[in-house]
């Protein structure tokens, strides 16, 4: 029997990536999770096990904020799923139409907001929607619909939805691009074959193209999920760390920031902050697992 030779070159080639990834991703991640198991009493760090998580989930002061943030986060995600992704797919379908003129122009124009900074997007939309200097009220006024205007960002019932729609505006280019690429990869012959069988126009989209791009839609959904549950910037830029009015726009990211770094007279608590970060990590992990094992493995793939 011949002993298997260790193939050193594999280790050598993998080492740089593994080392860098461990140093900047894996170590910080596990260190954060470790931090969540401690607390600070009189300047010394002591181990408390899962006490921080117990506080987070069962102490009414903390759990109320946590569930509020989680609920808001789900609403934020839902708006993206219901608005951003269907619009992205519709735009991609339109753009891939062979006889559409200026397709490249539309494609760039719709994609540009995605590369803008959150700070610019948040600030610009705050100005657009400002009841004092914004163009939204005057535009509505010009068509006689001034009565429909409300200070949306300042009202508990609208603020989160408004911000979710701003975020949709910014990111609608991403699903559009991914779906567009998927649509272009569908071979012409399949569509022609369908045409011979009498499937044309809209029904060609529903019966041929949509099933073929479903895997891409799945990937987009999971990217949206991860992105939304890690979101923080837009809310922080436009509503501040207290995520006003009355915490109606508070999502897990802002809750974590406020707790970890402190705010105004509230001192930062890295241990509770890490516990929240741990909970966020768990939520995202569960979501991704449900997708990977529950949905993706069952998705039908077609040989093109």
């Amino acid at each position, binding site marked *: 029997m011949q002993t298997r030779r260790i193939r050193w070159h594999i280790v050598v080639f993998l080492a740089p990536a593994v080392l860098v990834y461990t140093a900047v991703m894996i170590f910080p991640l596990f260190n954060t999770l470790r931090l969540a198991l401690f607390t600070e009493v009189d300047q010394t760090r002591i181990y408390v096990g899962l006490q921080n998580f117990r506080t987070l989930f069962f102490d009414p002061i903390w759990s109320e904020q946590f569930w509020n943030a989680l609920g808001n986060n789900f609403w934020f995600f839902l708006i993206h799923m219901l608005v951003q992704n269907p619009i992205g797919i519709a735009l991609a379908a339109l753009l891939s139409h062979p006889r559409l003129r200026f397709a490249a122009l539309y494609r760039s124009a719709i994609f540009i907001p995605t590369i803008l900074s959150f700070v610019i997007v948040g600030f610009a939309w705050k100005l657009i929607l400002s009841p004092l200097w914004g163009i939204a009220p005057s535009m509505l006024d010009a068509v006689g619909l001034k009565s429909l205007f409300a200070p949306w960002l300042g009202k508990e019932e609208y603020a989160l939805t408004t911000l979710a729609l701003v975020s949709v505006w910014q990111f609608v280019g991403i699903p559009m691009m991914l779906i567009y690429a998927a649509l272009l990869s569908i071979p012409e012959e399949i569509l022609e074959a369908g045409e011979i069988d009498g499937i044309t126009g809209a029904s060609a989209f529903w019966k041929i193209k949509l099933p073929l791009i479903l895997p891409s839609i799945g990937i987009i959904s999971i990217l949206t999920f991860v992105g939304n549950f890690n979101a923080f910037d837009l809310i922080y830029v436009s509503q501040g760390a207290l995520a006003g*009015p009355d915490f109606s726009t508070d999502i897990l990211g802002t809750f974590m920031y406020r707790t970890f770094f402190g705010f105004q007279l509230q001192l930062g608590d890295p241990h509770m902050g890490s516990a929240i970060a741990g909970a966020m990590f768990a939520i995202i992990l569960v979501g991704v697992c449900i997708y990977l094992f529950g949905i993706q493995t069952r998705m039908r793939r077609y040989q093109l």
Partner: protein
Amino acid sequence: MKRKVLSLALMGTALATSAYAQEATLTIESWRNDDLALWQEKIIPAFEAANPGIKVVFSPSAPAEYNAVLNSKLEAGSAGDLITCRPFDASLALYEAGHLTDLSDLEAMGNFSDVAKSAWQTDDASASFCVPMASVIHGFIYNKDAFNELGIEVPTTEAEFFAALDKIKEDGTYIPMAMGTNDQWEAATMGYNNIGPNYWKGEEGRLALIKGEQKLTDPQWVAPYATLAKWGAYLGDGFEAQTYPDSQNLFTLGRAAIYPAGSWEIAGFNTQADFEMGAFKPPVQNAGDTCYISDHTDIGIGLNTASENQEAARTFLSWVASPEFASIFGNAVPGFFPLSNTPVELEDPLAKEIVGWRDECESTIRSTYQILSRGTPNLENETWGASVAAIKGTESPEALGQQLQDGLATWYAPHQ
């Protein structure tokens, strides 16, 4: 040949560093980015002229991020030599964590009263860790032209105050009062803690609350919310989404008549507004009542224990405690009133008017700052939300008082 070049280069660096060592450079951490020019043009040159060999760099960050940024820098050991101190617990925590040096032995600390030092002391007053720099006073700044035009007298009682607001609203030229609730803190700082001291009788009520003798459900603590509830009708259209800079602009553009203010606005307003401004103190309930003002110890400056320039930093701090600094600072940054015992002659008319209230009224500080914002839920943050809710009318004043009291009672022993 190569080696020679290398050793020359090394020698060069060695020379440069030794020359550098004689000249200490002090870096100041601050949240007052608005004051950058004043520090660079007036305060620092004055100090450097008197103390050759010490260079000072003023390095501010954004106010809302200051605490978070500073804490991270201190943890990482990259913070500046001098730390601008927020009042009370934020700085106390830094002292307890060993980031701020005890300055009780600094001779110049004798230039300050106990009240001035109280914001930067341990609870038993045994150690002082920041040199008090300035306080800010709350009140209302108004557009004198608008008041003359509409024939309104400066209000002194609450009835007169609301009568004036009604008159401005009826006329319609001006928005009666410039304030929004989007950023939340104005409602608490320039609303609740501005008018509140007249209800809870300043220090008397504040200290009683800390001792647990009064509760936030008592009428003197709930009544300010009831008054704030009446403000909503006089704020601009869409005030729910109006931000702090929006309010400042509304007032300085001359579109609003009254601005619930803190004195820190003076410098900015002087450069922005092209009309004459006046100020009036928070109106009292009945004519002749004692007036109370919020004269809040707001800025101090302390020494980072990790600083490599302890001696130079102490020299700078002694200078900050001197009457010379008080006079430069008070006049360079009108609206931040020096706390030192030597009275300072202010030149700015608006600042002079406001600081004059110290002689007519009893001074106090913001009710939530000392001790009461130590726990979770944080009373200061809760007060922001409550003041906004009061103005919007989403909750009754009594319910708000109850909510705050319940929150405080969960962690603060004297209230349990």
